[in-house]
């Protein structure tokens, strides 16, 4: 029942009308599908949600205005909770995924009732859930840090490599009182931040300050923190790429700001044009929106492009010129699959231009969940904040301190990914073969899937130069669009649901990320294990052919 919100390229205000219209559709729809329930609920007042927010589809509530007056006695019901909570949306774990979980239960209860025997989750960048193995060295160190008492035991070398033992010692010695079970400094353990700063320096060739680093439970809380800091009201806007990773739209909605979209150009491999940025910035200003920051995701999610250094220079100059904070989502920095492209951090690009702390405010996000490590469950990550006044940094510190600290295991892992084994270390060879094995396999998978998508009728797919996703465009036949309408859902959602029912493959409709009006996409991760890829390709190809045969008209 997801209703696609259609984005206008011009201005946020125009989007608002569309948004409200789609909500009206939703409300009607909800009334149809209302389920009786003993708890009082009421329809929330969507019309009051007037900010030009993107991705505001509200999916789950079964609501009915007729019940609104009958009982509003519960303090917490959907009609009186925080409207910003209602407004935000997160498609990566949205409706199609919920459906997939139901099908999985079905399969368990009644095997053989569907044309597939397992659900393949290509909706989320969660590599280890699909069989990717962790890097042995990292896990050895983490295990040892959990049981520091065994470090001195004579039996330990029988189970752990010598450099893992040494690294664990180093780390434990960094922790005040060697207490791995204690809250740390709210920015993260100082010694680990030193290690990370050194890793950044080695990566960029420019100095990094450990005090600029805030360790977080994954990159997402860091993004939330920056949004909370920047957004005062719906009059404050954040420039976000479309398509975008819905964390941004959701976080902006939760914090009551406005998403100002800029479109990536699909025809040029999801290129980021400065002229487009300028146009959208001007349009937002005209609407009275004060644009505070620019989000760039590099390598791109869901689009998979890797920005050229020249393009990055222009972006940095643009931010300096316009006084925008540059929020650089660089969590896929290790995921680059094409020889002609390289990852460059925005900090390095800015410093190469000679821009220092006073020229540009830059936040770089990194995570242990992506890369070749893919340690999603650890919730480790950091942000490097540069170009902030001491006063503001204090405020960030205070926000971090309310949650005390991020989890220590994730902190340790963040330091490990920024300082992996080196030549000569006992684990070096194993580490390299694990890392290269994962990355080269990902590159092959990206290529196989991309080529497969491009052979499908009406489908075009840009190369995944980096990250973990493909974002093919599907030209849906008119009859399919009408069938979607009849099913009261967006055409891309309709396609993805059909795909799931037929193949067990879970992908996310493009409308969850935003797309040029009238175009339809889906996002598919490249993460299923390599031996499964051929079967997936066959299943998707067969499904697509049947789908097109049915609706081609």
């Amino acid at each position, binding site marked *: 029942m997801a209703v696609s919100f259609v984005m206008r390229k011009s201005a946020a205000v125009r989007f608002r009308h569309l948004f409200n219209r789609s909500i009206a559709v939703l409300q009607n729809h909800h009334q149809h599908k209302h389920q009786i329930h003993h708890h009082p*609920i009421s329809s929330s007042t969507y019309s009051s949600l007037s900010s030009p927010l993107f991705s505001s589809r509200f999916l789950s509530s079964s609501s009915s205005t007729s019940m609104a007056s009958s009982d509003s006695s519960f*303090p917490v019901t959907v009609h009186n909770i925080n409207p910003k909570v209602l407004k935000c949306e997160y498609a990566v774990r949205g409706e199609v995924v919920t459906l997939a979980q139901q099908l999985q239960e079905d399969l368990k209860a009644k095997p053989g009732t569907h044309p597939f025997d397992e659900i393949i989750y290509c909706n989320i960048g969660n590599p280890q859930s699909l069989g990717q193995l962790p890097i042995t060295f990292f*896990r050895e160190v983490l295990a040892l840090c959990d049981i520091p008492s065994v470090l001195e035991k004579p039996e330990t070398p029988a189970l752990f490599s010598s450099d893992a033992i040494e690294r664990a010692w180093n780390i434990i010695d960094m922790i005040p009182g060697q207490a791995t079970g204690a*809250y740390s400094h709210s920015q993260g353990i100082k010694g680990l931040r030193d290690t990370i700063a050194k890793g950044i320096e080695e990566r960029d060739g420019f100095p990094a300050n450990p005090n600029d680093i805030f360790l977080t439970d994954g990159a*997402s809380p860091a993004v939330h923190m920056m949004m909370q800091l920047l957004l*005062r009201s719906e009059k404050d806007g954040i420039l976000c790429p479309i398509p975008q990773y819905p964390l941004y739209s959701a976080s902006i909605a939760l914090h009551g700001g406005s998403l100002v979209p800029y479109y990536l150009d699909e025809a040029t491999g999801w290129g980021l044009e400065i002229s487009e940025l300028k146009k959208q910035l001007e349009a937002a200003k005209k609407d009275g929106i004060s644009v505070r920051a620019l989000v760039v995701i590099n390598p791109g999610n869901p689009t998979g492009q890797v920005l050229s250094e020249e393009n990055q220079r222009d972006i940095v100059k643009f931010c300096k010129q316009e006084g925008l904070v540059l929020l650089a989502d660089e969590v896929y920095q290790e995921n680059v699959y094409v020889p002609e492209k390289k990852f460059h951090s925005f900090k390095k690009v800015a410093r190469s231009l000679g821009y220092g702390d006073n020229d540009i405010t830059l936040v770089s996000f990194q995570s242990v969940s992506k890369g070749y490590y893919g340690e999603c469950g650890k*919730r480790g990550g950091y942000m490097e904040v540069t170009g902030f006044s001491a006063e*503001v940094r204090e405020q960030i510190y205070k926000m971090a301190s309310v949650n005390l600290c991020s989890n*220590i295991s994730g902190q340790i892992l963040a330091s490990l990914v920024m300082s992996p084994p080196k030549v000569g270390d006992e684990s070096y060879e194993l580490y390299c073969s694990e890392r290269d094995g994962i990355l080269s396999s990902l590159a092959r998978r990206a290529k196989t899937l991309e080529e497969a998508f491009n052979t499908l009728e009406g489908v075009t797919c840009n190369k995944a130069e980096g990250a973990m996703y493909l974002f093919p465009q599907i030209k849906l036949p008119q009859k399919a669009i009408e069938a979607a309408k009849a099913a009261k859902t967006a055409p891309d959602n309709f396609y993805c649901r059909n795909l799931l029912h037929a193949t067990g493959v879970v992908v996310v409709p493009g409308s969850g990320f935003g797309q040029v009006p009238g175009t339809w996409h889906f996002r598919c991760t490249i993460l299923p294990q390599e031996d499964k890829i051929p079967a997936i390709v066959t299943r998707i190809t067969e499904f697509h052919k049947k789908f097109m045969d049915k609706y081609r008209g």
Partner: protein
Amino acid sequence: MPPKPLDYESINENVKKSQYAVRGELYLRASELQKEGKKIIFTNVGNPHALGQKPLSFPRQVVALCQAPFLLDDPNVGLLFPADAIAKAKHYLSMTGGGLGAYSDSRGIPGVRKEVAEFIQRRDGYPSDPELIYLTDGASKGVMQILQTIIGGQGDGILVPVPQYPLYSATIALLGGSLVPYYLEETANWGLDINELRQSVNQARYKGITVKAMVIINPGNPTGQCLSEANLREVLQFCFEENLVLLGDEVYQQNIYQDERPFVSAKKVLMDIGPPLSKEVQLISFHTVSKGYWGECGQRGGYFEMTNIPPETVDQIYKVASISLSPNVPAQIFMGLMVNPPKPGDISYDQFVRESKGILESLRRRARIMTDGFNSCRNVVCNFTEGAMYSFPQIRLPPRAIEAAKQAGKVPDVFYCLKLLEATGISTVPGSGFGQKEGVFHLRTTILPAEEDMPAIMDSFKKFNDDFMEQYEDHRGYSRM
């Protein structure tokens, strides 16, 4: 030049308003002093391992094995790990789809949530639904998430005890809501008086605030009292009458240091009362792996249980949880282990009991030493720490000390605590960070310093305090000028 987006004057006002004293001025000064080489006794945060408490062996062994599952196939694994830890690690790994390195369900691993539900059922004698239990990165994250769901704007009020744990004030400020204080009665052992509550609600309503929820912290932080069952009944009745969600912060439920008032959960009392309350009063209960005899603060593990929350709202809470993908998985395993510890007959059972009892009994003794120590000091009165991890003595500051504080541009209790820090290295949190009645001053210490250090710490406190009082108190016979 116009202000830049992250110039101090242009950032979110709610961020500036938010205060979090536990890591505030005192803590920063203490960290500075530590860097200068001074020995600091951090009693500002309930962070037991930082003060030398050793982690329980068994859960660490299990989680280490989950971190390094390849060890399970190693013929040498038995050299370092007992068989029941190996079995437990396999048990938890089988619940995950991809081990510790994969995002779990945004609500937490279903198998662990089931174990939590079974624990609650054993504890309370009433069924608990795993679907209504969400695992979180520590209880703080859970509290933030629930408050975010409740608070839409300034007109939404949350009843919070004063003194309170500043997580509540800080989060309410960040979210732009209104904190509606109700005072705990120090002379009645930090008792919770329903008339006081009623007054607070009426006052807030008079100001146009819709009071939506009430927070109780039981056992109390920073106040250390344990609520009686009768008192909890009154609170639930009050929430029923006033249509409030009850937020039960029960993270200290293992930390009980007296026998008259054992811990009773708000959920149990609610179910004991029966309908209509048991079907109507909305309750969210919070728990954590950071407290108790576990003290695994650094893991960031917790859960909340929802009672009488309509499914549509649960869906919304789920959606917001899903934006953060999942709580960290190692801490979810810790939570599983906490609610489902070794049983009699398990290889590790004896050691587990020895370790946990040792910690709890020592905490009980420390609570006593500390309360008695404070009460032996001049101008200091202190209620006994019945539970939790803190002592919250009242310091009766002489007028001249208050005057001196004013001159130094400090709040009087901050002034006192800074002097205490400089003189003794004891890092405490001033009562003003938690809220207190006007003109009354406190400080909070944890009871966590190692037991053997305790007498020396209390001696040095007493010496400082009595000197301080000597310096600032008018002496009898001293001529009044």
